[in-house]
């Protein structure tokens, strides 16, 4: 079905377009920090670009820590199954549309 149809993200140009849109939004949001006066409950909220930096740094730390966790948490896919399952098993079971 639709093998030869070009889809939106098949064109690298469109991917770049989406990325530039994201960069643009981020820039605008950062600038809005200077324009819009915010009601601040905690002093840290007043730091320049607090939420933006927190979001960015938080996510980078999250991903890097998670990646590091793989070093000691990751096992092969059959780690539990080898001992728990007697027979073969397949994903989907009875409930896969044919």
């Amino acid at each position: 079905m639709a093998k030869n149809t070009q889809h939106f993200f098949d064109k690298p140009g469109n991917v770049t377009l989406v990325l530039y849109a994201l960069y643009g939004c981020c820039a605008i949001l950062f600038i809005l920090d200077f324009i819009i006066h915010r009601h601040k409950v905690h002093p840290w909220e007043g730091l320049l670009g607090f939420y933006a930096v927190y979001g960015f740094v938080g996510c980078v730390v999250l991903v890097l820590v998670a990646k590091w966790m793989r070093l000691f948490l990751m096992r092969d896919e059959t780690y539990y199954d080898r001992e728990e399952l007697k027979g073969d098993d397949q994903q989907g079971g009875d409930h896969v549309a044919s």
Partner: protein
Amino acid sequence: MWPAEIPAFLPFFLVAFLAVITKGTLRATLMIATIVASGAHLWLVPDGVQLTVNFLGYELMPYRVDKLSLLFGYVFHIAALIGVIFSLHVRDTMQQVAALIYAGSALGAVFAGDLLTLFVFWELLALSSVFLVWARRTEKSYQAGLRYLIIQVLSGVILLAGLIYHADKTGSLAFEYIGLSGMNGWLIFLAFGIKACFPLLHNWATDAYPEATPTGAVFLSAFTTKVAVYSLARAYPGTELLVFIGATMTCFPIFFAVIENDLRRVLAYSMINQIGFMVCGIGIGTALAINGAVSHAFNDIIFKGLLFMSMGAVLHMTGRMNGSDLGGLYKSMPKTAALCMIGAASISAFPLFSGFVSKSMVMSAALEEGHTWVWLMLLFASAGVFHHAGIKIPYFAFFAHDSGIRTTEPPRNMLLAMSIAAALCLLIGIHPAWLYSLLPFDTGYNPYDATHVLAQTQLLFFSALAFVWLNLRGLYPPELHSVNLDAEWLYRRLVPQGLRAGFTWLWRTDATLRKASMKKLYSFFDYLVQLHYPGGKVSRLRPTGNMVMWVAVLLAVYMWLLLSFVE
């Protein structure tokens, strides 16, 4: 006019029975009509209706309607309706009956006015929902279901112990504020905690939900944990411990979600993260925080249901659920992809989507009550939830690299169910006043002020930027076929292996001891044999000559005695 005291679970149990004896369109019509009628009935039931019964000297209240239970009652009806529509194509009586009993039990639990009634529905939830896992009919789902059932029933047993203790201490079984003042409070707290996925007690969800059927997981995600959230809100509001438990729950699952390959397990982890926000809100305990907690439960049921539905649709159509095997599905399932992204935007709490109007209440309450560290954890978790549920789920399923899978959109009933959920996500997000009017407290909170909107949008867009940056730099961990160890390792690996090692030691010691004692026994036999065999001490023959001599000695003595009397 019919009586208002018809308990909300009754129509569900009734239609579950009817579903056994009907099939096809009739069953579908009956199920949908009953849920709609029961929902409409509940809508008309005024707050304050109670049904009381006397039982063994205790006053039981099998049906109690107040604002808190009504809110959960409404959303459970919505979830049941969406779930039933989503599973209309399923030709499996067991699943459909189990789903209805499950939804009915959840309603029974939230309208329970006493702990004994709660216990009964608590166990019914476990017993009915496990069939949604077993209905997958694979060895793996059978095992996962068994583990799920054991943990759920254990939670019920602890609840029973707690309520007996409670009744003994207070003389009442009323399901009201309990608090952590005594053993009864702690036991009931632990029972609720197991069902609410407290840290280290959470693995039943990440274990069983990904093994459930595509439609079963939709029901599972809606009821069990939210009944626990309701129960915590009822019995432990303002318990400070919950603030820290909740904050932990928001943070630790997101690390697992980032490296998890099975997308429905990612959703299960993200569900624990969302429950964390609710638990935290209940712990803070102010009117705003409680409102935030229960309204977030309301929204979570809908958007998490939507995400589970979209993944269920992918699983149903492709038979695959691992991020590493999927990708590029937006080409053949564009509608599902769009609906999934609405769910993703809602769970990420984008302004104009439902998550935003409820989560921000918990965050504001944490900040206002001076829980700075907790607030920072919640903020981190908010960025993280966007990362793993908001971006990862749609990205690896529908975009990323093209897996080459070409399929079609799921059946129409699935699309319809997802559309209803998506519409509700948008409706609540755009017009939160409707949801706010149902909440237990009136706080006059307005999520749409410049402060909240800008802060949240900045947080989310820069999280997205982090995702893009990590991906472009090749730092993002690839999706890998793997198992990540979690607390479940304790009971799936350590305990079985420990038991095995223990028994091996026991058998070995037993064998050694037996061998040693047999050796002793045999050497004793050998000794006996030595005694009795020819040449042995006991079997030595005395020569006849000896006997003659002794007889002579005897005669001599006799003689001597005789002679001494004669004189």
